């Protein structure tokens, strides 16, 4: 059985439904599954590296390489980051899932701060953009 220590945090039912709705050939479907899996691994590792003090990076990577399935990695991360590692990784996985769902639904989920004032006023017609208020 293939397993990584944060597997139980990966609950992507909605994404699974989207994948199942897509008409792909069997090989394309497997490629898609693999890429989603890899995206999650890269993002989780990025999240760990961002939150872990740099002098612990090598130690963590060694532990992860030696036993990717070991639940004790959560204890290690919580101790070294001073944050709840489960909550941290759960949040990151949820964020990736949202982004991937956005890709499936054909929308770029851009944060609101990137919207132009025109688009923002379209979304919220009650508030007028700042410039016009002057």
């Amino acid at each position, binding site marked *: *059985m*293939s*397993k*990584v220590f944060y*597997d*139980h945090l*990966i*609950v*992507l*039912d909605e994404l*699974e439904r989207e*994948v*199942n*709705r*897509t*008409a*792909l*050939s*069997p090989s*394309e*479907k*497997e*490629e*898609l*599954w*693999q*890429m*989603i*899996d*890899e*995206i*999650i*691994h*890269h*993002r989780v*590792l*990025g999240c760990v*590296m*961002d939150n872990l003090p740099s002098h612990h*990076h*090598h130690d963590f*990577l060694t532990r992860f*390489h*030696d*036993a*990717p*399935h070991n639940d004790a990695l959560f204890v290690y991360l919580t101790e070294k980051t001073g944050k709840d590692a489960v909550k941290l990784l759960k949040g990151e996985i949820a964020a990736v899932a949202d*982004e*991937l769902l956005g*890709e*499936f639904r054909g929308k770029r989920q851009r944060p609101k701060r990137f919207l132009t004032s025109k688009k923002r006023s379209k979304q919220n017609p009650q508030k007028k953009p700042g410039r016009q208020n002057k």
Partner: protein
Amino acid sequence: MRKPTKRLPHPRLQRTAVHPILHRIQAKHHKVKTQLFGKHPHVEKFFQDRGLDLSEIRSHSAKIIGAGALTASFLLTPPSGIKSLPVPQEIIEKLRSRSQSLPDATPKGLLVKSLREILPEKVRPLTHDEEKLLEQIIDRLLGIKAKASLEGEHLNTTFGLIGAEQHLKRYPGDSLAAHGAGKILQAGVAPGLGAWGQFAPTKAELTPSLEEKERWYAVVQTMYLPDWNRRLPYLRDWYRYRKVLIVNTQNGNTVVASIADAGPAAWTGKHFGGSPEVMFSLGGPTYKKGPVLLFFVDDPQNQIPLGPVDYTKGAI
């Protein structure tokens, strides 16, 4: 003046006629990877130095777990045939005597109780001894020769979570209405094909046997088998329509199914899949996910029909 060199896209993006969603996820995949290794180049170097790609972390993990289990079995298995687990007859007799006056002293009730005694609370790959014991109990109670390993082949796990799948397209132009009637149609038809393609090239060539194979199909994670890519031509044929016995470990409902698709993805948290009919038989109309045992059926003469298992024909 030197011409500016055209930057080639990522190798995965260089193909043509890629499904749009696949293209978008490929681009996302490339971006995420570049971001991680751009920000933390020592991570890339760490894995490079160890000859491992982060994308292979699951197969790497499977190898470590496999090696650990093997070592443990060498170190912990008593050398002189002394088993820590009781013999199957002992379990069955114990349960039978304990529940003689109870209404569930049926083969099905005994199977559920035996499974409760043997199986761990959470799904995990079973040990060789646990699998052997279960094989014998199934043989005694159901009269079916179920094997965790058959002809040297073994799945990554025999005790895992099964999830509901959709109907599969059996021939070009197949429609949902042709798959039966009633609640069983609610699952819909998968838009793509199963891992082994269509069951028949035309509707006229769809035999009753193939129809049964789709009706009672199972999905297993062949793509995560450690030697899948290395032995692809052989394994692809070996697994195609391979008969398996699926036991709902919570209620004892049992189905004989044939493997007709590969999956589910590792990130779904599930290990097997079942057709709408299989899921209905295992747990009723609302059953979508649950723990099951999945063993190969040793049936070279093709005598065991697909579908729900009749306990009254057991060999107890």
